[in-house]
């Protein structure tokens, strides 16, 4: 191809560890043409971020670039002197980093953080810099009265846009975007991306876009590279990748992408084996409210996290609670798990209002009936204890069976969540297992008490795309085999659609819509639900781009 603006030739990066170095990037080579949008997709640990950070040479210790070339307009960045590196940074390549909250210095005002770049690289004086900063604010349309605010005073979306503004400060020809929207909600994400593409149309810079979300990339990338454990296994045009690409891993990725709209694919997740008996209510929430005190004991500001939420979960039914971060869905989960007390309202389990029968603390009986699986599989397991300990404790605590049987039972549990051979996994420590395996352990623990309801709070959001589906399958099977009811909490309509019988949509603590999953995804009523679905269905960005 003609003059690539950036061309990487068999790049190698290693992370030094106590044992032998970990080879994070292996002989990666690819070109990026002037003005194109190049996407790099891969799961966590695939080395995609390492690649981009080595372009700017900002990889923190203990990373070492052990080989290859990174040619920017023909100049090898890896050969540059330190001084030259300082200069080429930001003038020629800028970066929008993953979570903007961490990328911005919490104690410096936005104005300073932007101006610094201008002082150093452009040598502007205060007035000139200020003028420029204002321009940039207009560019990303943020009101000028935000100039002197500090990061913590801004919403996630705003912060991400500020970072974008900083990236644009010197109008570099090349901008790297490293998962710029992962931390954001779908709708905000959508706005940001839209903004980016808009600006690109206007300013015509080249974009290297990193993400784990292939769906997203397919929307606007022209060419896509797929990375797996440090190897760049495939580089292809978006359309080809969209069709499943050439590499079977790519196929797997594409295959494992449930979508919120379109015909339901029946190969993904087993449906409940239909034996139509009367739905028999298991757990019922009656106008549940929860508010938190924000700050100050003099006149505490209150945040109404959950606002009059009422719904029912029937025996061996999967209900999904869908909403963006801050919608209060996790609060509902913690309320049902009795980790926090509601401000008002009641929870009825098997027709009994538990706040009357056991007001202060949840009884053992309740604990046994209602179990929970948490979002972060590492956080939810205690790194100082073995898998065996994690499963053994609940059983002992609830005196489920006599000592002699426990060991075998635990092994079975592990097998039940596809952790075989169970004997091996029983003795492992959390840090010796992959995320998926950990999440399975967590599920097994919840399951081991033979509960009637399992609350699954975003059980897949921390996992890589390729294994999310497995977890969803396991949950589906649980319901079929142990006929346990599941409250599946997620921000991802698609997986909700496929796993749940019914979907409840939350927005800012309020229940906005409820319905059988296919119907709700089929024709949403509430405009918010519509937005969500729109944002989660292919082609949404293209549509908008056309009418640019």
């Amino acid at each position: 191809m003609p003059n690539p603006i950036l061309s990487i030739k068999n790049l190698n990066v290693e992370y030094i560890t106590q044992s032998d170095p970990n080879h994070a990037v292996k002989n990666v080579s690819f070109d990026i043409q002037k003005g194109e949008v190049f996407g790099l997709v891969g799961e966590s640990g695939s080395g995609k971020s390492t690649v981009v950070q080595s372009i700017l040479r900002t990889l923190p210790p203990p990373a070492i670039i052990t080989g290859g070339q990174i040619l920017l307009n023909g100049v090898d960045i890896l050969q540059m002197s330190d001084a030259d590196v300082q200069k080429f940074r930001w003038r020629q390549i800028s970066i929008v980093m993953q979570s903007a909250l961490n990328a911005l210095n919490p104690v410096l005002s936005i104005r300073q953080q932007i101006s610094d770049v201008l002082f150093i690289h452009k040598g502007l004086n205060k007035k000139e810099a200020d003028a420029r900063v204002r321009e940039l604010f207009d560019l990303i349309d943020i009101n000028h009265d935000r100039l002197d605010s500090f990061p913590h005073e801004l919403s996630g979306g705003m912060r991400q846009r500020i970072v974008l503004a900083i990236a644009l400060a010197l109008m570099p020809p090349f901008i790297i975007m490293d998962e710029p929207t992962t931390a954001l909600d779908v709708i905000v994400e959508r706005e940001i991306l839209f903004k980016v593409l808009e600006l690109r149309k206007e300013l015509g810079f080249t974009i290297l876009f990193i993400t784990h979300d292939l769906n997203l990339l397919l929307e606007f990338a022209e060419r896509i590279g797929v990375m797996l454990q440090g190897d760049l296994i495939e580089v292809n045009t978006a359309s080809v990748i969209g069709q499943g690409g050439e590499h079977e891993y790519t196929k797997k990725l594409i295959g494992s992408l449930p979508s919120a709209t379109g015909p339901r694919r029946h190969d993904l997740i087993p449906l409940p084996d239909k034996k139509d008996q009367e739905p028999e209510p298991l757990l019922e929430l009656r106008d549940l409210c929860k508010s938190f005190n924000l700050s100050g004991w003099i006149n505490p500001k209150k945040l109404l996290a959950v606002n009059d939420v009422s719904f029912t979960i029937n025996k061996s039914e999967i209900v999904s609670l869908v909403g963006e971060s801050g919608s209060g869905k996790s609060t509902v989960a913690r309320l049902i798990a009795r980790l926090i007390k509601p401000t008002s309202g009641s929870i009825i389990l098997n027709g009994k209002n538990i706040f009357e029968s056991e007001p202060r603390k949840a009884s053992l009986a309740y604990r046994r009936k209602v179990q929970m699986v948490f979002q972060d599989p590492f956080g939810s397991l205690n790194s100082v204890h073995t898998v065996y300990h994690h499963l053994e404790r609940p059983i002992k605590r609830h005196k489920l069976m006599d000592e002699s049987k426990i060991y075998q039972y635990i092994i079975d549990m592990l097998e039940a969540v596809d952790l075989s051979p169970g004997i091996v996994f029983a003795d492992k420590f959390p840090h010796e297992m992959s995320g998926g395996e950990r999440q399975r352990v967590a599920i097994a623990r919840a399951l081991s008490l033979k509960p009637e309801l399992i609350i699954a709070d975003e059980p897949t959001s921390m996992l890589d795309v390729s294994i999310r589906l497995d977890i969803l399958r396991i949950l589906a099977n649980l319901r079929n085999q142990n006929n346990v009811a599941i409250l599946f909490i997620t921000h991802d309509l698609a997986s909700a659609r496929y796993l749940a019988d019914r979907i409840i949509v939350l927005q800012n603590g309020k229940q906005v819509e409820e319905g059988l999953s296919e119907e709700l995804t089929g024709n949403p009523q509430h405009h918010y639900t519509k937005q969500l679905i729109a944002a989660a269905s292919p082609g949404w960005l293209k549509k908008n781009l056309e009418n640019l």
Partner: protein
Amino acid sequence: MSTSIQYLLRRLGFYAIAAWAALTLNFFIPRMMPGDPASIIFARFRGKLNPEAMVALRETFGLTDEPLLGQYFTYLKNLLSGDLGISIAYFPQPVTEIISTALLWTIFLAGTSLIISFSLGTLLGTLAAWKRGGRLDSFLPPALAFFGAFPYFWLAMVALFTFGFGLGWFPLRHAYGDAVTPGFNLPFMIDAIYHAFLPALTMVMVSLGGWMLSMRNTMITTLGADYITFARAKGLPSKMVMLKYAARNAILPNFTGFGMALGFVLSGALLTEIIFSYPGQGYLLLEAVRAQDFPLMQGLFMTITLAVLGANWLVDIAILFLDPRTRR
């Protein structure tokens, strides 16, 4: 900004409670213990004492037999009206007179050495963290830690006897020489610094390591933060990243530590004062305790406590300006 004022008021409220607790403690502890100051004064004339004299003296010392609680409230009342009572050891001097000058010297000595060791330690810590594994980083911390391992007064004594008594480089005692007259004149100030040098030096020696280490550690954590990587990606010069982006943030937790450590540092200062017979509160306290001079002790304890609390409040204000997150 009103929220930050609210925050300051809240802190102030807390300090008020703290002060009250300290003073209460300070009132009751001595009175729980056996012995009675009057009897000690009388013991000074190892002879017959007539009851009237006893009664009269007790009254002049304010050692009434009224129930503790009653005494407690009068004590609080007097404190609020700034009346710390009459010293027994220095009878009939009002405690305030005795303490006032001593307090100034203590603050001068402890204050300067604290500020020196904090700022120097912070600077060293910053550099050490920045040049991790460098010469400074690998050599200084253990060395300073070793100095820090010695008891304050031990170093002080060795210093006094080698540099003061042995070599005669520094004065052996007091806050200023006989020749100069206190006041805002250069000779006096130079002399004061000269006299404070050795005590201050020993105190800095002992405390420097702690500051350096804590700064180094917070600095290292800060350097791991994304915004540092981002700042570097922005192509900002190293010095700027180090000072404006890293050190600027890393210093915040140390500041809080600074406020909290004041109490400990002051303790060290008191001991050092005793060694160098520096006319601060250190030796006064010892005297007060030996003579069971309740009023003087209470006065000292109060002033010291208030000094620490006041300093803490200043720290709060400083942090308020340094860290926008507290301004919410």
